[in-house]
């Protein structure tokens, strides 16, 4: 390999001999670093290396949406990204949306409207809905449905999830009344 190739490293895993890479990510506003093989998925990097288990892993081939996180603000499947590819970028996981004391509007809405049952799919719905509402503050019901159409839920039947997305938009408007009056 030419020396100019970034992401190359002389460090190897002591048991497997696999080359390791230093991945530095800004996760929920905090820079974090870990040394991992190139094949480490972002989803596994978050869950196993950084111990942020809020991001769930359902299918690992891009279909279910449970692993959705925000990469520089835009929702992406963390199971379809290598951690090493996004080194240097910012990731927001469900843990970064809000806290129990200061919930994000989508978190509050999902709780109010029973937008979850087992909760397995929920982190993906929350991140997807949060990113969508940031760009489309007043969706119609059809738009709300469309916004979450790439996420699967095996429990709720989606009705309450759609309701939650619409309610989240309302909460966001209530929190910034001047924006909705304009």
């Amino acid at each position, binding site marked *: 390999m030419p020396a100019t190739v970034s992401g190359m490293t002389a460090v190897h895993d002591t048991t497997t001999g696999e*080359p390791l890479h230093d991945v530095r990510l800004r996760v929920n506003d905090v820079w974090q670093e870990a040394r991992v093989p190139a094949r480490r*998925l972002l989803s596994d990097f978050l869950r196993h290396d950084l111990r942020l288990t809020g991001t769930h892993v359902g299918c690992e*081939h891009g279909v279910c949406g449970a692993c959705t996180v925000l990469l520089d603000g835009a929702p992406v499947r963390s199971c*379809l990204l290598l951690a090493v590819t996004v080194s240097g970028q910012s990731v927001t996981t469900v843990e970064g949306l809000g806290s129990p004391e200061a919930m994000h509007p989508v978190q509050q809405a999902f709780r109010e409207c029973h937008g979850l049952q087992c909760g397995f799919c929920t982190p993906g719905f929350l991140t997807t809905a949060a990113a969508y509402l940031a760009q489309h503050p007043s969706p119609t019901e059809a738009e709300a449905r469309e916004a979450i159409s790439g996420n699967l839920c095996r429990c709720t039947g989606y009705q309450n999830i759609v309701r939650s997305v619409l309610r989240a938009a309302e909460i966001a408007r209530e929190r910034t009344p001047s924006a909705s009056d304009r």
Partner: protein
Amino acid sequence: MGKRDFPTRMRQDHRVKPSPFGYAAPATVEEALAVLAQVGDDAKVLAGGQSLLPILNMRLAAPAHLVDVNRLRELAYVRAEEGGVRVGALARHVDVERSVPAYDALPLLRQALQLVAHPVIRNRGTTVGSLAHADPSGEMTAVLALTGGSVVAARRGSTRTVAAADFFLGPLESALEPGELAVSAFFPSFPARTGTTFLEVARRHGDYAVCGLAAAVTLAADGTVTAARASYISVGGTPVVIDFTELLAGSAPDESGWHAAGELARQQVEPEADIHASADYRRHLVGVLTRRALGEAAGRAA
């Protein structure tokens, strides 16, 4: 989110899905071509990863090397050029979909992209990557074929332009050779008074289509048809282009013409059955969707 210890099983290094591979993330195209030349045949280019990562995760493929092109910022562009739209290899589907100059030059790009997967997938997947992937269900393959576009492929020391008709060789097989990087794709615009549309039937919105087509109809100043073509996905190993110009030229843009075109298309396609649909159902859809799409495209041509 606790810092508790994980069971031993999870702490071991079996927690990754893809097989090991050598990894390089070149910073320039020149560097990327040098790496591709060096690593040999058992290498894959990693673009958006929205098709490649599922394959690696399921271990359907285990390339020895990945050449990650996500740092090639010089390829992250969408440009309206003389006669069409040029899309760089690092332009994400979402960049092409939202580009106003691209929409003005060729509305079909946005019409098709809105049917490619879900917005979250489009945030990451690249348009050139979906051409390189050559999935016969991929909407953008049909767009390249219908527009008569081309792909620019580079290897160390040389560059070639491959026409759409020569680019798609079979299911998941493009004309790209080991050591080559697709650097851009060019989608020519249509003549004035051309309307276009992309229609498809999928089990759910965002799923791969059971059958779909891109259609373009050009009308003369007097309102009669001068050209009509369509390009189909999911009914063959590569996009299937059917030209209805001979059938429809000079006639009024009306239902009887679209009906005849639908019949012609139904007879020409050779779809196969799979778990999603029978061959007969796909053939039926070809007829129905052709009628609708040509009507819709003609309506936009006026």
